[in-house]
């Protein structure tokens, strides 16, 4: 089974206070470190586990600037055979544009595959759309929120997808297909620095995004960036004990954890 896995290098913003620059024109990421998108880490791990068991190859593909080579080296260290970088210095906010770039790349370069994995979403834009759009424009079956792969046959796969409230749905998908992998599907292995250094010796191919122009499809445009309404510290509940406890239960009800 040949699996293409999309992996993205994203800003690690969880611990950062983000600043918006130039009157809303940009988010300042100049001092923020970068890392592999968490969901993609699970996708790469899942793909590698499948080929370790079933044979085949994993090809990791990243769209981004030259620095994105980092996540390709990491994928190779985890067990991917090849790493392709579709180099694009401009950040593409529109997931439709990204999906069409991928479609054109796969077609023009004749990249063979049985299954395509993406993460359910990326930590930065949280769009969660590239896999779904890609599935549709490739004309292939698609499933997102994949939390388990139960069986892999020549012409189909049985997968489980996560629904809400602890419910899952078992689904049969014809192969080839596109799957968006949910975090928690596995426990991704640790990738050591030594492993990454060894992986660096495997050549990664670089392609230019500009060589795969997308047809003009309607897209979305970002108008500007804004901050969310300020929350600011803990709201202290005050008053007599029964008042505070009543308020506490009110919060539990509001959050839907207590009726």
């Amino acid at each position, binding site marked *: 089974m040949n699996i293409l896995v999309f992996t993205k290098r994203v800003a*690690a913003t*969880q*611990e*950062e206070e983000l600043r918006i620059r130039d009157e809303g024109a940009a988010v300042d990421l100049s*001092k923020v*470190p*970068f*890392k592999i998108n968490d969901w993609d880490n699970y996708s790469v791990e899942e793909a590698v586990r499948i080929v370790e068991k079933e044979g085949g190859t994993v090809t990791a593909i990243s769209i981004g600037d030259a620095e994105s080579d980092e996540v390709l080296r990491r994928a190779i260290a*985890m067990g991917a055979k090849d790493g392709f970088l579709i180099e694009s210095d401009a950040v593409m906010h529109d997931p439709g544009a990204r999906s069409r770039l991928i479609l054109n790349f796969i077609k023009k370069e004749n990249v063979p595959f049985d299954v395509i994995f993406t993460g359910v979403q990326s930590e930065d834009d949280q769009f969660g759309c590239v896999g779904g759009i890609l599935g549709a424009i490739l004309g292939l079956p698609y499933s997102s929120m994949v939390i388990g792969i139960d069986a892999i046959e020549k012409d189909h796969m049985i997968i489980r997808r996560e629904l809400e409230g602890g419910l899952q749905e078992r689904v049969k998908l014809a192969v080839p297909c596109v799957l968006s992998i949910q975090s928690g599907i596995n*426990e991704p*292995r*640790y*990738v*050591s*620095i*030594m*492993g*990454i*250094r060894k992986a660096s010796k495997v050549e990664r191919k670089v392609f230019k995004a500009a060589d795969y122009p997308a047809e003009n499809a309607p897209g979305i445009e970002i108008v500007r960036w804004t901050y969310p309404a300020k929350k600011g510290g803990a709201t202290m509940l005050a008053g007599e004990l029964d008042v505070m406890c009543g308020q506490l239960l009110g919060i539990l009800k509001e959050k839907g954890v207590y009726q």
Partner: protein
Amino acid sequence: MIVRVFGQAGSEIMPEQTATRVLTCIQCGKCTGGCPESGKTPFNVRMLVRKTQFKSNIDEALPWYCTSCGACSLRCPRDVKPSEVIIELRSKLVEDGDIPVTIQKALENTFVQKNPWGRSRNKRADWVEKAGFEIPHVSKTESKRLLFVCCIQAYDPRCMVIPVNVAKLLRAGGMEFGILGEEEACCGNEIRRIGESGLFEELQEENLGTFKEYGVKEIVTLSPHCMNALKKEYGNTGIKVSHYTEVLARMIADGSLAFPGSFEKKVVYHDPCFLGKQNGIFDEPRSILKAVPGLELLEFSRSRETSLCCEGGGGRMFFEVESVYQRNAEVRVIDAGMLGAEIIAAACPFCVMTLEDPATEKGLAVKELSEILVEVI
């Protein structure tokens, strides 16, 4: 239980040197005798060396019990360095990517944010606000003397007082120093002991580059763990590295630092493994405490080279072993209580963190050395 055969001589996993040393082990058991984990947990350091000699199966969970206190290597008559053997076993697990998830997180965090907790690197100098005075960047100092803060002191609310205190003490003694702020990276001492030598090398390279860029001539560390790495594992840097207790002891001896206040308490001093056992610094912290007017210094029966490890080292800050047993920290607190101590003083943030839980419960206080000293300057 997952077992594994670890490499031996000739394999790329265990360096020739270690493999040869392992073969010279005579199984005398002095390592196990001094080990803070052997006996009460499934961990037996002698047995692990034996199994490594014979390429026998080893339970993968076992190497993670080691606290890297170094007692085994100190006691070994054949210089087998069992604590280094443990690091080799761990590096095999690290390379295979098969390690406890909390350790994995600590390593991944260190890779991204240069500290094991994954806190923002941009907030590494946030503690400075609490100092109440300006602390220059080391490049702006004449002495090029660096106060190396490192992760737990930079981020943990309990330990953030340590850099503040030490900065005040150095200032009181008229010593010039600077910091690196967010340009500082984790020293890597625990990272190396977790077995991630590649990451350790990256941290070392980055820090050495920064030291060179700013012409750092001298380093004062807050944690004995950082001192150990910078002094003994960064190679020949030409930079003088001291623990802050060494610096303060000198300042007291030459009269530049004096304690006008008094501290009328019975204090027992706990030797941190990386300060004492592994680096021979026993007298400086004691001489400092003795210089505090009113302070009555007590001694544990197990002190200096035989000090009982608090179990906070060797990656154990990030990982909880499966078996449940009486923690050494609790033993230590009970001992302190029997000595009649009111306060346990330690000169290591990990010791403070591990000792404080049981101490609070038993009505004893734990203070990092500098916390006592700032009360009397």
